[in-house]
């Protein structure tokens, strides 16, 4: 779960990372008024959305005066930003963060994560950061260098200094090391899965400043971090994704018109690949998980039936674990018994109690067509969805 930029910075600042002086506003008037509290010669107005790729989508604006800040806030607030991570629907800006513009001498990139190989914290860094850094890093893996980040000690700091020198972070190096160890402490103390500071900028007065910061916290650690719930409370997420979460369903909204139900993340990804290959477009990724009850499944189906974009529903089910195929079929049946809108169901059902599952759908009069292979089911649902469009 990513925190908003302002939350990320507040958290890092508590551990000693230097961040620009800033305030948050929900209206242009507030934005202008808050400028007097910020010690700055120039300002930056930044859209606070949950997805990355904001800079390239115009979500960061510079302003010379408080009245310019109000103008930029007016442009951003209520606007929909479409970045490569939001999907085509984009995300509406409801909050802006106003902060002092920094006179940047050098822009770097630093991130802390857990190394999947060793399990230990690792520093990822580059001597050249900035807005287009992610794109560059994606093209060329060598853009980012990794370095183990053991607990703070004189030896660890010496090793870090050597590493930073190697990537061109030589000036005011002690301040950079202090900032990195402050970020490490924040990372270790808060069940973070990622701290990304980009740009990690050296200012003209020799300070290293987190000009932008992105923190991800581990939702699985929420049981020992009660504060997480309030941190993400105002995070924008589609209503149907939140409803699905309450029923232990993983749902991600996509742009198509085929509602997809799969029991298992891998099976869901595999199904969506095959839909796209067949010329169809999934409206969602849905993993009802192998521990789902029939009521959980019913809720998942109801979400799809309530989605106006969806023309047909594809079930890709391999019964197993505690959720056999008949449990899933019962769930579909529950949802259809209540539903006003009964979309066609195309089903590929196999695994534990598959025959039973087929029988339930047939006998309870769910409008179902069953197929023997995923390929055949996907072909049929793609055909149905395209007919729906033409009508």
């Amino acid at each position, binding site marked *: 779960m990513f925190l908003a930029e302002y939350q990320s910075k507040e958290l890092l600042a508590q551990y000693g990372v230097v961040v620009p002086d800033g305030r948050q506003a929900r209206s242009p008037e507030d934005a202008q008024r808050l400028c007097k509290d910020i010690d700055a010669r120039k300002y930056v107005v930044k859209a606070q959305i949950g997805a990355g790729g904001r800079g390239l989508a115009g979500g960061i604006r510079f302003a010379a005066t408080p009245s310019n800040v109000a103008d930029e806030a007016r442009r951003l607030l209520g606007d929909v930003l479409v970045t490569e*991570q939001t999907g085509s629907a984009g995300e509406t800006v409801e909050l802006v963060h106003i902060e002092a513009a920094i006179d940047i001498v050098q822009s770097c990139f630093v991130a802390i994560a857990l190394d999947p190989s060793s399990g*230990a914290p690792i520093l990822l860094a580059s001597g050249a950061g900035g807005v287009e850094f992610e794109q560059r890093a994606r093209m060329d893996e060598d853009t980012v260098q990794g370095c183990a980040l053991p607990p703070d000690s004189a030896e660890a700091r010496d090793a870090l200094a050597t590493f930073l020198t190697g990537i061109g972070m030589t000036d005011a190096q002690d301040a950079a090391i202090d900032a990195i160890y402050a970020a490490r402490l924040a990372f270790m103390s808060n069940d973070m899965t990622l701290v990304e500071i980009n740009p990690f900028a050296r200012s003209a007065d020799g300070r290293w400043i987190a000009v932008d910061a992105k923190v991800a916290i581990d939702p*699985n650690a929420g049981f*020992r971090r009660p504060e997480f719930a309030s941190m993400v409370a105002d995070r924008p997420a589609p209503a149907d994704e939140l409803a699905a979460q309450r029923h232990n369903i993983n749902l991600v909204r996509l742009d198509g018109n085929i509602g997809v139900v799969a029991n298992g993340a*891998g099976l869901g990804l595999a199904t969506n690949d095959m839909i796209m290959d067949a010329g169809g477009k999934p409206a969602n990724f849905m993993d009802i998980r*192998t521990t789902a009850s029939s009521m959980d499944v019913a809720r998942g189906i109801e979400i799809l039936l309530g989605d106006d974009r969806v023309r047909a529903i594809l079930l890709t089910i391999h019964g197993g674990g505690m959720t056999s195929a008949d449990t899933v079929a019962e769930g579909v049946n529950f949802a259809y018994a209540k539903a006003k809108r009964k979309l066609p169901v195309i089903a590929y059902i196999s695994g534990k109690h598959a025959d039973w599952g087929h029988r339930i759908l047939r006998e309870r009069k769910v409008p179902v067509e069953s197929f023997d292979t995923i*390929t055949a089911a996907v072909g049929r649902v793609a055909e149905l969805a395209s007919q729906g469009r033409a009508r």
Partner: protein
Amino acid sequence: MAIFVNSETRVIVQGMTGRSGTFYTDEAMRYGTTCVGGVRPGKGGGSHLGLPLFDSVQEAVDATQANASLVIVPAQQAGAAMLEAIDAGIGVIVCVTERVPQHDMSRVKQALLGTDCVLIGPNSQGILTPGQCKIGVMPTGNAKPGHIGIASRSASLTSEILAQCSKAGLGQSTTVGIGGDTLHGVGFVDCLKRFRDDPETEVVVLIGEIGGRGEEEAAAYLETVDYGKPVVALVVGRHAPRGRRMGHGGTLSALGGGSAADKIARLRATGVEIAADADDVASAIARASAHSNKTGAK
């Protein structure tokens, strides 16, 4: 033969008295797995499903000579349960628990360094050597003993592919679920190495997905060795949007992770036969076997 587990494997279950623990221990025993006891702090001296209960893993190991453990406890306790099993010298730990905090796995991974312990999971369906040993939550109705070794990151997709393989007459040596999380125990490379040394295994199937570096590491390993057995791979999530988590935590890694296209290209470049989609794996195995017979790979 087979890898990691076989008919000699003696299994204890950490969390045996819970709802899931009871269900899956019962299923494993019906399948023929040698289950020798359960661990439930405070219930030591009692019994459950006809097996003795112990307060700690060490006591269970001392009394039963267990060499494997199924960890099936709530996510809050999974890290501590794995650490306890590592300390007690368990050889193979299988953790099926989902949603284990990453920082707990960080401690577990560091505790594994320098030990011979094999961790499978977490968030894994477990490991199955058909006809010999099931440790996990996977269905077994469609599994058949044979010569295909499978390593995968997702559970139900693997069950589906395993069923398709069995239907095509392709039985399995061992199926390993390496798990869907970012931080996990054994990976594709560990499985490839074991399958290479296993005389029962003739073809290896890797079932991967977007995110993480596991498929890239497998490709890098295969580049450095004359593997000697055909390898088939399916990588799903080819059309998934970037930067969004798709069910498994591992699909979203710190810096975006590898795309499916990139993983497929790297694996293909090392001679791995790529399955076009989930329905193509049995055919891909046939293609890879035919090709390897023609070129005389042993």
